[in-house]
């Protein structure tokens, strides 16, 4: 049984840069945890600290009850898959996969059998006698996996193992790796900058930014109720649209009505949305951050049956027909909010920029004045200063 516990991990580099701040995480036995974050956020450093390839400034790492801080990498019983695979070029595929067994002095017959078994799982049987230089990218990736699974370690560490593959192969390997992991039941710590990998592969997802853990939850939890503006914008593609806005209350006889002032437009917010977030009433008439995901915006020309006060008007700037859906970009006159993702394209930070995911039957053309239905039940609210979600 191998649970993994990180307790208050800190990594300071000699030049004073703090790569990891107070990272605490717990992985259950057999769990697949994905650590995701933008480039340079310290996620690979965290992985390398667990592997023992990087010194720990302070904090503790446990696998089960065993404290691993001062254990050499070779004695940690972990297998690692590197971004560039790090296959040994002078060895054949079989020798590469057998290398960890050879170092453990596993008898030759047993070694051959285990290599064969691993090769079968990974469909590498035909390639066993080839050198890595003669393999395709996907095959190299699988050899790296083979080297990891052949020794049945306590923990898999994977450092962006799919980022060197082309898009199509990546989709396939994503499913393959997740499948193999489930089959073997080995606890896995997976690092990536790709939120799609994080969402599709992980039992749980941990989002990290600038060395600070932002949120740990199931993929659905992270997507549905992000803890802060960064997580909200980072998870999901296209990103959540985030604006500075003001929540207003209109007192009426039949009960209070609420609306959000987005630039010069107003959007009605159902009372139950406010009721579910009691803290929201403390932010009335003050600037807050409002977020809405692209899929909660729809062309009013397609879905006519929508409350009239939950609509916005905008001029279509760009239209991307993807077949199954149509992405439409337009500009709202409300100020956008910078989520702090260093990888985000600068154009996305253009003030007021908004992306909507319309159904394919939408006929909105560039230059059209479109009416946009907003599903106000799925609005997200954040504090403007702290960027934290406003809930209870």
């Amino acid at each position, binding site marked *: 049984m191998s649970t993994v516990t990180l307790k208050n991990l800190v990594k300071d580099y000699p030049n004073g840069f703090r790569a990891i701040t107070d990272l605490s995480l717990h992985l259950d036995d057999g769990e697949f945890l994905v650590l995701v974050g933008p480039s340079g956020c310290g996620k690979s450093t965290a992985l390398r600290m667990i592997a023992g390839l990087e010194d720990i400034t302070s904090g503790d790492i446990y696998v089960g009850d065993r404290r691993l801080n001062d254990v050499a990498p*070779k004695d940690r019983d972990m297998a690692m898959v590197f971004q560039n695979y*790090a296959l040994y070029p002078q060895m054949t595929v079989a020798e590469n996969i057998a290398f960890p067994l050879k170092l453990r002095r596993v008898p030759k017959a047993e070694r051959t059998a285990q290599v064969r078994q691993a090769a079968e799982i990974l469909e590498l049987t035909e390639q066993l006698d080839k050198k890595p230089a003669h393999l395709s990218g996907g095959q190299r990736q699988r050899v790296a996996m083979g080297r990891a699974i052949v020794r049945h370690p306590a923990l898999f*560490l994977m450092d962006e193992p799919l980022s060197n593959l082309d898009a199509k192969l990546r989709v396939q390997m994503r499913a393959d790796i997740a499948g193999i992991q489930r089959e073997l039941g080995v606890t896995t710590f997976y690092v990536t900058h790709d939120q799609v990998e994080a969402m599709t592969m992980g039992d749980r997802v941990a989002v990290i930014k600038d060395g600070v853990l932002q949120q740990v939850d199931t993929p659905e939890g992270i997507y549905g109720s992000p803890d802060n503006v960064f997580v909200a914008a980072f998870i999901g593609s296209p990103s959540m649209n985030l604006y500075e806005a003001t929540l207003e209350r209109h007192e009426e006889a039949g009960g209070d009505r609420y609306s959000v002032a987005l630039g010069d437009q107003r959007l009605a917010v159902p009372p139950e949305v406010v009721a579910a977030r009691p803290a929201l009433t403390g932010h009335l008439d003050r600037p807050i951050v409002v977020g809405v995901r692209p899929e909660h915006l729809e062309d009013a020309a397609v879905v006519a049956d929508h409350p009239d006060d939950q609509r916005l008007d905008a001029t279509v700037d760009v239209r991307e027909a993807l077949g199954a859906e149509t992405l439409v970009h337009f500009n709202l006159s409300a100020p956008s909010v910078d989520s702090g993702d260093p990888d985000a394209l600068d154009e996305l930070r253009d003030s007021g920029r908004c992306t909507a995911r319309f159904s394919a039957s939408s006929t909105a053309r560039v230059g059209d004045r479109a009416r946009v239905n907003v599903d106000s039940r799925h609005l997200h609210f954040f504090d403007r200063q702290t960027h934290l979600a406003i809930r209870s």
Partner: protein
Amino acid sequence: MKLSRPSIRPSRIALHAVMILLVVWSVTPFVWTAQTSIKFTRDVASKTPVLWGYETTANAYRNFWLDSDDVNMWGVLAFLLVVAAVAAALGLIGRRARHGWPWFLGATAVICVALWRFPRFWEANDEYDFLVNSVVVTLLTMLISLSIGLLAGYGLARYTGISGAVILIVALGFRALPRTAFVLPYFFGAKEIDEWLTSTGVGSWNFPLIDFPGIDTLQVLDTRLAIVLALVAVNQPFTIWMLRSFFIEVPKEMEEAAMMDGATRLQAFRKVIIPIMWPAIIATGLFTMLLAYNEYLFVRVLAPTEWTLPVAIVSLTGGESSRTITEAAAASVSITLPIVIVIILFQKHLVRGLGAGAVKG
């Protein structure tokens, strides 16, 4: 598909003419020397050069290497060919074998034993001792500087701290200084040590384990050891820099992967990094070999009698008589030949090592 013939343009003709001229320019002296070494004195001395149709002889080689005038040189040639054939056979087996190094070691051993036993069959000249000195000095220098260079180059490639940079810059500085800056300090240093050895009596101690034949006093000056130490010292910066540049090209993940797979750092170095580095090691080794084999100044100063070949052939340059000319030519050819053979054997590695670097992406 048919390739069209490149059109013959004047610029092409000119280019080829220049290249042919360059080849002739650089090859002619070698051909001339090789011819001279197998001619009789009368043909060399004749007023009109005899370019072909001359009678050949191995007299010059006999005079240079052997201490007797009535040796059948065919016998010597046969001996050399047999040794070469055995070594080549072992080498070929080694290339085919899974683990080549025992066979390569065997080939090297055959050559060394042949060199060692040769004087038992034929009475050799002093020059033969100088050849042995050359081989010993070259091999030892190569071995020692590669060993140090591999460890230091690896360390300096992986360690990026400021002191690493300082070491590299200092090494480069020493490399840039002329040989003449070191040779006298080395000489006087060695002399001091020898004087201390003599004055304390240590020099005449009898060490049972290092009781080499022909050595009865312990000394530094005028020994092969002195030459080796000096050559290692001056060539080490080069070895370190060259190997470091190859190590940098080996991704750090390579040894990290090995360590995750259960290797110690030393095992990762030996079983993963070194095999990747072979082309680089061979290239660096060849350069060190050339440097050591060609060295003149240090040998001349540090070893008044224990010469190596470059110093030995100088004695042939003063001669005016045509007899000395054939002998000098023979000396020149026999000194060049081993190096040419080694370079041809490892030429592929040399190019690969210098060209693309140790690891292909």
